């Protein structure tokens, strides 16, 4: 069995559906808060919190905690590395899709 081509190996940290959803939403905004991410991804509070902690530890998102109208507010933004990794990941998925379509036609 041949080795998989390195450019097609998926980033396991990002490929998890919850984290992929979070990073995809964040790639279309400058920053967003916890509630907006909960709404758009449909993740539970605990799941979202856990995924964000992992993404922050990997340096893909920056988290800022502040108070808005005396209520705690968690704001999240992609880091430069995060922007690069999510764009590359979607490119890889597109390439895999194209590859599987072309091999299906043969």
């Amino acid at each position, binding site marked *: 069995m041949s080795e998989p081509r390195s450019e097609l190996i998926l980033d396991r940290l990002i490929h998890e559906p919850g984290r992929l959803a979070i990073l*995809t939403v964040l790639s*279309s905004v400058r920053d967003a808060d916890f*509630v907006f991410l909960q709404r758009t991804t449909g993740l539970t509070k605990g799941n979202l919190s856990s995924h964000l902690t992992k993404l922050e530890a990997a340096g893909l998102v920056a988290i800022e905690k502040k108070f808005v109208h005396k209520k705690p507010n968690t704001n999240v933004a992609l880091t430069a590395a995060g922007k690069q990794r999510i764009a590359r990941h979607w490119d890889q998925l597109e390439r895999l899709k194209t590859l599987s379509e072309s091999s299906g036609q043969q």
Partner: protein
Amino acid sequence: MQRKTLEKAAANYSYLRGLLAIPLGVLLILAALANWEVGPLRHIWVFPVAVAMAGAGWLAITRYYNENYGRLSPSTKQQVRSALAVVIALAVMGGGSLLMRSDAAWSLDLPVNAIAVSFALIMLISYAIGVGLKAHHVIIWGAVLVAGALPVWSSPDPSNIGLLLAGVAVMVSGVFDHRLFVHTFGAPKTLDLEESDVGA
């Protein structure tokens, strides 16, 4: 994984907060009634008070959306699109309405309702650039456009009727936008919206 749906969430969030259109619609209607000097609106101080009340309503509605659906800062790309929509809107409102019907020597002086036509065009262009036209945008603003463009507005100044039409259309379109917003992001109290301790 619905990539396009997730990527469009920010644009949908910014454009479909339809309840924010209600104070604007009320103001347009009040502007028309003030021009006609109807009831208490004949007093010059009433309209600024109405503007202040509409502003307070707008802030309260913004807070409702922020607390139930979250906050975001749009991307630079989205901000450029919004700025482009504003520039086009100003050009249509200023140039278009003067060209269609005004006291200017170069005006075509058509028997149309320039306010209704301009407003409908602005809204259609703005939605098309920002979030893509939905069926209710085409129906509501298309109807205002057609009504304004019919050559039946030969009365001296149909601007106030145009403002009334625009005000009602803004509110109706806003209600439909909000329905679509709730359909996209869920009902207000369906999530446990307490803040997390992430990053603590």
